């Protein structure tokens, strides 16, 4: 007989509970058969999914067609498509400031530029990082971990770290000071703040995408490179003719994934800038959050309408991603 | 007690009918072996008996009680799986105890039964190891042990030896036979292996495409196969089949023309043959003997497999293939001509539906 281990001490009461649960479940199994047990196992998950994901999804549409500040649906008045037309009501469609909901269009514009620049730069850096990590490095897993570190940090921590660095007495100004430059209050400058949001979110997420790209790179059969080497192919040509084409499906998935995440940008930017200065870093999710909850003039219906528009964009992106994934799978099978 | 009776058992997966009208009566203590080509439904039949699959029609009775709606757990049977299906995260002892604990057996009795089984199977030395730390043969014993401790009314074994190497198979086969002798319980055994079937079975059930082709003792099947399929399936290498025409029927005897005109005489028995009828003659490769008679049919040797103790000849006889197993070592080469005597070996005659019409005893030399 072995002495009881720590894990068995912990598991003993759990096992006892499970044994007690077993008796009624056996009866259930008798009554419903093995097939009925499938429903039993699926039920908790489906219940939670249903209540907290599917149901909200459905009532979101109802919300977007009601007005007022109340949160309970029964206290809200049906107003049809008024929230949507409010979002789209502009005097001049080329100038967001002429729209009734100028904040929405500012957020849309900011998000658009943010997504465009952030995803492009981030995928580029992630690709370079992955290519470098894919070389024959000493201590590769250490280096991989280095780039991955910020991915685990919470958005709040990320926001605070950079707020601390970018503030007037911060590390950035200290660095500039060493080169004889004047300290600057970065986070009060619209352009610099926008640039900072892009830089910070690249810093925080790049490692994740580098990791996926690296996995794609490592899936490329080594013998292809060896064959190319036998043919005396130049490294640049190897990259353009072998690495990139074979990586393309993987890279495409990564790009769409990055787009999906980038459109929803919120947490770390909210902590870093609060959407300011002014509305220069106000993004869509923050707009929805503030319209729905935070501002004194909250309008849940409007927020719901805006979130549905955003959801539409995400659905399109996700379908593209699934489409790419499917194609990749089929290719793999053949 | 372990009497199992199947009446009209049907099983289909969706539109695919896997078992068709299975009738079978297995007596208590009998060792029954299911054989048949891959995909014919042997495992499905076994799993249906076990209660792991629900029948789509017919009746299953165990000891006279209808068990169609009784779950696998409550049928009182034990099963040994092809992959052994030992619980990888439990020690050998826990593997054996699991089923007993589930039926709320007192601890002392569990220990006693496990120890007894361990002694019987000589697995005492590794009771505290996990399956991953055992060899294939040891795992196999544990799997059998897990069945034994349950003291089931019948054992169901699905190709239990197929994952062992050839040598281990032979020794384990003998042990299984001994085990059955000692326990005396009903065993139903699925296999691909002819030798296993012939050596272990009281009765063999030959299946094809979801149907039972024949049930009988090993020698019945070997000597009097019901049809061409059974004849070809039992015995290795398989029986030779030669096209033949009935030339003449006179009294007790019929005269057949085989291998491009060679005449053989067969005793009719109860069978009816009519002149001009097309039949098939079956002859086992082991029954062929070389003949010096210049009238015997000539066979062109294509390939010689010298196995030392015997020699297998692959040849052509009047455009048909012929296999012969000759004793000892023969001086034959590919391209040689050799003559075989077709008048002395036992001959089976099948009609054009493959049903055996008669067996001519021949004169064993």
């Amino acid at each position, binding site marked *: 007989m072995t002495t009881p281990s720590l894990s068995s001490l912990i598991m003993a009461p759990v096992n006892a509970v499970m044994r007690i649960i077993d008796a009624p479940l056996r009866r259930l199994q008798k009554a419903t058969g093995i097939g009925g047990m499938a*429903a039993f*196992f699926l039920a*908790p998950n*489906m219940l939670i999914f249903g209540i907290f994901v599917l149901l909200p999804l459905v009532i*979101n549409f109802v919300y977007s067609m009601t007005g007022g500040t109340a949160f309970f649906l029964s206290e809200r008045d049906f107003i049809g498509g008024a929230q949507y037309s409010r979002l789209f009501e502009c005097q001049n469609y080329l100038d967001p400031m002429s729209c009734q909901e100028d904040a929405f269009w500012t957020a849309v514009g900011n998000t658009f530029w943010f997504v465009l620049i952030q995803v492009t730069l981030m995928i580029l850096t992630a690709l370079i990082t992955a290519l470098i990590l894919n070389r024959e490095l000493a201590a590769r897993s250490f280096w991989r971990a*280095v780039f991955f570190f910020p991915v685990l940090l919470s958005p709040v921590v990320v926001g605070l770290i950079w707020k601390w660095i970018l503030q007037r007495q911060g590390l950035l100004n*200290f660095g500039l000071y060493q080169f004889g430059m004047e300290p600057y209050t970065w986070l009060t400058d619209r352009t610099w703040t926008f640039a900072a949001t892009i830089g910070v979110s690249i810093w925080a997420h790049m490692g994740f995408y580098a990791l996926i790209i690296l996995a794609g790179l490592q899936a490329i059969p080594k013998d292809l490179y060896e064959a190319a080497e036998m043919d005396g192919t130049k490294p640049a040509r190897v990259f353009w003719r072998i690495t990139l084409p074979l990586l393309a499906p993987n890279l495409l998935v990564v790009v769409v994934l990055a787009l999906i995440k980038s459109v929803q940008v919120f947490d770390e930017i909210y902590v870093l800038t609060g959407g300011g200065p002014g509305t220069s870093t106000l993004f869509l999710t923050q707009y929805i959050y503030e319209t729905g909850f935070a501002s004194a003039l909250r309008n849940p219906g409007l927020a719901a309408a805006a979130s549905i528009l955003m959801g539409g964009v*995400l659905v399109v992106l996700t379908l593209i991603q699934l489409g790419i994934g499917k194609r990749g799978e089929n290719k793999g099978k053949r | 007690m372990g009497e199992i009776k199947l009446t009209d058992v049907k099983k289909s997966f969706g539109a695919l009918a896997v078992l068709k009208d299975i009738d079978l009566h297995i007596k208590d203590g009998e060792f029954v072996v299911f054989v048949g080509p891959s995909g014919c439904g042997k495992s499905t039949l076994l799993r249906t008996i076990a209660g792991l699959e629900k029948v789509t029609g017919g009746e299953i009775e165990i000891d006279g009680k209808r068990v169609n709606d009784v779950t*696998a757990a409550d049928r009182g049977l034990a099963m040994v799986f092809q992959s052994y299906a030992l619980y990888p995260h439990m020690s050998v002892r826990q593997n054996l105890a699991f089923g007993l604990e589930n039926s709320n057996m007192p601890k002392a009795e569990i220990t006693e039964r496990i120890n007894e089984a361990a002694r019987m199977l000589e697995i005492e030395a590794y009771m505290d190891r996990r399956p991953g730390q055992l060899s294939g043969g040891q795992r196999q014993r544990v799997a059998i042990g897990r069945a034994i401790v349950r003291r089931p009314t019948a054992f169901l074994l699905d190709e239990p030896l197929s994952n062992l190497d050839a040598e281990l198979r032979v020794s384990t086969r003998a042990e299984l036979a001994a085990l059955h002798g000692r326990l005396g319980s009903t065993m139903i055994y699925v296999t691909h292996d002819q030798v296993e079937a012939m050596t272990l079975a009281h009765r063999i059930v030959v299946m094809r495409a979801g149907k039972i082709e024949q049930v009988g003792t090993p020698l019945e099947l070997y000597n009097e196969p019901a049809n061409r399929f059974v004849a070809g399936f039992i015995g290795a290498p398989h029986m030779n089949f030669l096209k033949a025409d009935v030339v003449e029927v006179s009294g007790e005897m019929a005269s057949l023309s085989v291998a491009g005109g060679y005449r053989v005489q067969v005793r009719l028995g109860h069978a009816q043959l009519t002149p001009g009828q097309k039949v098939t003659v079956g002859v086992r490769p082991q029954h062929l003997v070389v003949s010096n008679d210049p009238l015997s049919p000539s066979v062109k040797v294509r390939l010689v497999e010298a196995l030392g103790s015997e020699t297998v000849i692959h040849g052509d006889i009047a455009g048909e293939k012929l296999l012969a197993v000759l004793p000892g070592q023969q001086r034959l080469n590919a391209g040689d001509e050799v003559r075989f005597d077709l008048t002395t070996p036992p001959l089976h005659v099948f009609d054009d539906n493959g049903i055996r019409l008669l067996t001519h005893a021949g004169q064993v030399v």
Partner: protein
Amino acid sequence: MGKVARFILRRKGGQGWHWTDIVTWFWLVGGLIIMFGPAIWLAFSSFKTPAALAEFPPSILPYVTSQATVEGYDKPLMLYDAKMPDGSTRVLAEVRRIGLVAQMVDPKAPGEIVKVNINDRSPVRTMSFATNNYTEPFVHFDFLRYLWNSVFVTVVATLITLVVNSMAAFALSKYEFKGRSLAMLVILATLMVPLSVIMVPLYSIISTLGLFNSLWGVILPTVATPTGVFILRQYMLTIPDELLDAARMDKASEWQIYWRIVLPLTAPALAVLAIFSVVWRWNDFLWPLIVLSRRELYTLQVGLSIYSGELNVQWHFILAMTVVTMIPVVLVFIFLQRFITTGIAGTGLK
């Protein structure tokens, strides 16, 4: 040493420095500094006193100006290294400063006043860790509560996540039933529904259920994650069905099969999901921010962001609490990073 250096500096082809080697090293070392530097800078800063934090240019390590109590003076005096006219330096305490001249005394001989030009003296600084940056928020603010709330949410949500998702994965991988593919599709579809899309109606549901301003309101909506179901289902598909049949023959109930057979065998995948879930729930921000409006219910993330958003930010506390918030994640990073990276590389899920 030579061997180590050669190993670390191993280059393509082995001879000479190809330009790609230089880029590689530039990138890696730069990455090391940029990825770790900010967090380390923050950690160092968290030990500084408010005065040291306000300094510019900042020092890297937490220094404070030394003080000494000198006989005859009530308040402690600042210590300086003063350059004497004869070129030597003495440690003196400053009594007062008049224009460009500082009146100083020798702490050992406080009788005599020495006049020193203020440009000839520099403060004596010693390293000192302001540990009360850490203790104060716990003792005088609610951060201990926030820490507890965060731990509670993380642990409970992770446990429920493991149970609920493994049950669903079990059903979806080991049973054939009508509507199985529909269930899979529904779960897949929810991958497309991020919180930002449904936060308004979700909030109303939480309120209707009376879960507003409750930690359960934070926990429940997150526990049925499609990612979890997928990771576990994928793993369970590799468990042979014969094992389940064997257990059925062994009189195990379906619940026992789940609990005694399938779950133990799924342990590696459960571990990955548990690690993911801990990181997710610990880091959650937007949803707790919406659901929790009472101070005593804040999680660390919400508390931090609220305090850091105040007009008069007490950075020394914020920095210290940020470090506290970072600790579990850094521990996960140090010890379990490999699990996560292989998990991500294998599933492409975050």
